[in-house]
């Protein structure tokens, strides 16, 4: 089965709903689609910020 070409998520709803609800809400609508990756686009995982302390560790 071909996957949807483009999905336009309601970003505001998604951020208010949170990851768990987001994944549960869409698992039947988009079976087999990488919803984790879609969530990461909406709410990117925290990255380590370059602070003087981080630089000192290097």
């Amino acid at each position: 089965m071909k996957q949807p070409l483009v999905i336009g998520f309601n970003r505001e709803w998604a951020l208010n709903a949170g990851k768990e609800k987001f994944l549960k809400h869409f698992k039947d609508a988009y079976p087999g689609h990488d919803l984790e990756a879609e969530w990461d686009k909406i709410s990117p995982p925290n990255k380590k910020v370059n602070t003087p302390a981080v630089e000192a560790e290097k």
Partner: protein
Amino acid sequence: MINSFKCSAAGGNTGVDDCSLQISKIVGFFLVSKNFVLSAADLASDATLQAALIAAANADSKALRAFPVHQLVDIADNTTDPTEQTFGYGPSVIVAGGMYNWTFPFLRGGLCLLKALKTFNNTDTRPIFYDSNGTLFGWKVGDTLKGVPLNQFYANDWRPNTGAATMVTSVKFTLNPRYLNEELGFYKVTDFSLESIEGLQNVVLKQTGVQAKPVYKVTAAVGCSAANIFDQYSVELAAAALWRAKNKATGAAITITSVAADANIFGFTVTLDSSDTGYPAVGSIELSLAPVSVLKAAGVTGLESVPLTIVNVA
């Protein structure tokens, strides 16, 4: 500005200059509401007029919208003669003016356009006409141009092809001539074609496939030929912000959580928030595209959707 054609001064003087205004063949019109107005600012230049007409043709509110009809192909002029009284001794006087009675056949748009125009029958719709030389004309009110008040607008039933003549689709206007004589307003366009101002087309949404609420699959088609717009707008319309859903009974908005361009159905998968207080587990939902202006800003131009009713059953 309005009436900038340099005719001789008013007041009944009969001297004329080297040029004269002639209304040529009437080839189109814009149907507008009684409150519609082209202001002095709109009529300041071709550029401002073009912008005003484009905005009017794409207005979100139908009460403010101008509905263009182009490429009229003929006129049947059944204008009534003035009523004349003849006295016993011979002299006669005009006691009442005649009435303009114009019927315009059209080919472009055919039955689909006729069906749309019939929705204006028995309404207070008013035309602003234009001729083949780009002269836009209507009712002058102060420094503004408005639609002409009519006795009647009527989109006629179509007449069949007789073998000698093609099928006829036509519209009829009856009006008091004073609006286009003593109260005539006009603007001569030179820098753009009035025919380029196009009306909106209806997008018809249809459910397709197996429904599994709150996920709904729909297709979107345009025009008389019901052409699917997926190829043209699949990327643009895969956006929750370009769709609207509401509880048909209460009018409450329902949150749309996603819209996907779905090549499996050559349409769109619309997902609603079933925990939204407006969402009816059992009941009707009205699904549509966003208003014309929102679609236009997203690059989806010239379209307005007809709401689709979706029925959720237990």
